[in-house]
């Protein structure tokens, strides 16, 4: 099955930017992020406006680091987890550039990279920004229960990140920190996991089709809190290996 596309140009990731919440900033990857928020409400009235503002700042920072003014940006593709991808829509309204709204949940950012990559690679646009955001406080309301509800989470429950990321793509030959050469378009793999507190188990099988080492790494991420048992984790990640176990 053909799932991977190869771009003709070696597309440059000219710049990237990330802004995260306090909890994410305190984690083991904290040093990687451009900015860690002290106030995850960003002085806004609602969590949704805060998420949109976080995304807007991230896109602006990305453009700034790429040495591009907003009026020279030719395409913006972004998404988030809210109804009507509200955070991205309001961000795009503020930026006023050609905008494609995307919803792929966890895959939104990569979806944006592939679509922007194709637009830039095909010569339709000179540059493009791919972006995505999520916010713990908006996601809890969207998918689970009110923030102040006094319930417990089981150990397998995932925690939606408060974070926004953006990357600027172009075809410039100048040296770049990273290049986009291929994109793999995934299929929906559903193992009928219906537990909303076990999203890792629902998502892990989708990683099938890659090399086993890669599946193992992704399964480890998906099962963040699970016991580290490489053999079984490997099995969890791909249909073929489940047969073997």
């Amino acid at each position, binding site marked *: 099955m053909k799932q991977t596309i190869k771009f003709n140009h070696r597309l440059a990731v000219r710049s990237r930017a990330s802004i995260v919440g306090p909890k994410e900033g305190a984690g083991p990857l904290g040093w990687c992020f451009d900015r860690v928020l002290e106030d995850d409400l960003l002085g806004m*009235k*609602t969590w949704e406006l805060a998420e949109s503002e976080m995304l807007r700042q991230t896109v602006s920072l990305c453009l700034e680091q790429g040495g591009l003014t907003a009026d020279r940006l030719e395409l913006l593709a972004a998404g988030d987890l809210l109804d009507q991808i509200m955070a991205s829509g309001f961000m795009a309204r503020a930026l006023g550039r050609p905008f494609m709204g995307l919803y792929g949940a966890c895959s939104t950012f990569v979806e944006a990279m592939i679509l922007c990559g194709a637009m830039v690679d095909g010569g339709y646009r000179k540059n493009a920004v791919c972006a995505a955001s999520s916010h713990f406080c908006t996601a809890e*309301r969207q998918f689970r*229960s*009110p*923030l*102040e*509800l*006094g*319930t*417990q*989470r*089981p*150990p*397998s429950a995932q925690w939606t990140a408060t974070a926004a990321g953006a990357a600027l793509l172009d075809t410039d030959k100048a040296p770049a920190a990273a290049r986009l050469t291929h994109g793999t378009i995934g299929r*929906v793999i*559903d*193992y*009928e*996991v219906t537990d909303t507190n*076990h999203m890792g*188990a629902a998502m892990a*099988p989708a990683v099938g089709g890659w090399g086993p080492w890669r599946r193992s790494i992704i399964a480890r991420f998906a*099962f963040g*809190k*699970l*016991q580290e*048992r490489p053999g*079984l*984790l490997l*099995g*969890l990640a791909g*249909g073929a290996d*489940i*047969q073997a*176990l």
Partner: protein
Amino acid sequence: MSTGKKTPEHRRYDRMVKALTPNSNFARGYMRAFWVGGVICAVGQMLSLFGEKALGLTEGSDAMFTSIALIFLGVLLTGLGVYDDIGRYAGAGSIVPITGFANSIASPAIEFRREGLVLGVGAKLFAVAGPVLVYGISASIAVGLIYWLIGGLGA
């Protein structure tokens, strides 16, 4: 491919997920629920005695006073952003008492206030407590009917 029916492979995967997923620490959970729930009940008992001795309430109205006071405390602690922390620690210990019910009404009220008074608070106030009310009231009707039938036979 997927038709919503579990294939043997899906079931094999389910078993593996179950084997790998860590369980909650039950002994610790029971202990926490026990002492926090106990403290809430003790506070209730104190309120009841206070109503009876200090306020001179009769037997029916001191229970009502206790419920109202506990609901007030539950809502107050929810508003102060404390009740969810208690709930994360105590689990059922703070969900089962009437303060937990107050929390389940107050927390959507806070969450959905931003969506307006009618379509926000009005429409979503019972988002959490709704199922409890629907099935609680339905169950009480069923039990009432059974009681009436048995009572009718006895008479």
